[in-house]
């Protein structure tokens, strides 16, 4: 008896489109933000710990490695925020038109990059960069 053709996992035969990258980025930034959440808690605990603890945390967060991590978290936040709003519109049934979905994808990516740069420039001081 001939072997029936079995279905392939989607990723084995879907054509790549940049909208795929946007979706996987949403997942990656979600995971990064979850790690960033622990930095937020660390920071809050340092504030609660008093001026010395706070100063320590600031110089720790000001180290080049952690500044890089924080920049990553800032970008992840901006991207996840913008694309998250796009997702919420999809969930309400808007924007599924291929043309619209692609255009909103570009706007999202652009807005995220611009927002991340603005946030970084404005917040560097507060996030330990100026310490």
């Amino acid at each position, binding site marked *: 008896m001939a072997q029936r053709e079995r279905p392939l996992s989607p990723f084995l035969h879907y054509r790549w489109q940049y909208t795929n990258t946007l979706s996987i980025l949403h*997942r990656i930034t*979600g*995971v990064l*933000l*979850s790690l960033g*959440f*622990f930095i*937020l*808690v660390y920071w*809050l*605990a340092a*504030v*609660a*710990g*008093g*001026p010395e603890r*706070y*100063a320590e945390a*600031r110089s720790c967060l000001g180290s080049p490695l952690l500044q890089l991590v924080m920049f990553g978290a800032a970008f992840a*936040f901006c991207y996840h*925020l913008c694309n*998250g*709003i796009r*997702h*919420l519109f999809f*969930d309400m049934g808007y924007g599924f038109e291929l043309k619209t979905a692609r255009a909103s994808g570009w706007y999202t990516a652009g807005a995220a990059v611009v927002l991340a740069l603005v*946030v970084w420039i*404005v*917040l560097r*001081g*507060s*996030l*330990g960069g*100026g310490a």
Partner: protein
Amino acid sequence: MSLRSPLGRVLGLGSARGGSSHWYAQRVTAVALVLLGIWFVGSLATLDGGSYEQVTGWLGSPLNSALALLLVVVAAYHAGLGLQVVVEDYVSDNGTRAAVLVAVKFALVVAAVVGALAVLRIAFGVAA
């Protein structure tokens, strides 16, 4: 023969598995995080340098400590729901999956409690 009744075996194994409430909670927390996230980043931006006095002055006001408390709790909840989906997608072995899920949720709950206590401590005045 099994100790479990046929009904007991299939309960909770329907196609939906409570998935819709998970989906819904992920969206509700997402909407809340849009507002809380903008509030948090916007406030940090007005702190201008973030000295200790500025930060405690900001977080010490009742409205701001309430929002910070909400941010910590809602972010942990949203992250828990989200990470659960990610783990379920990539970890196929049932035992490993359960272990990873428990570890992730424990870590998030501990972090959320530490964060919440920190906010409360700031709200009620750090004993200097």
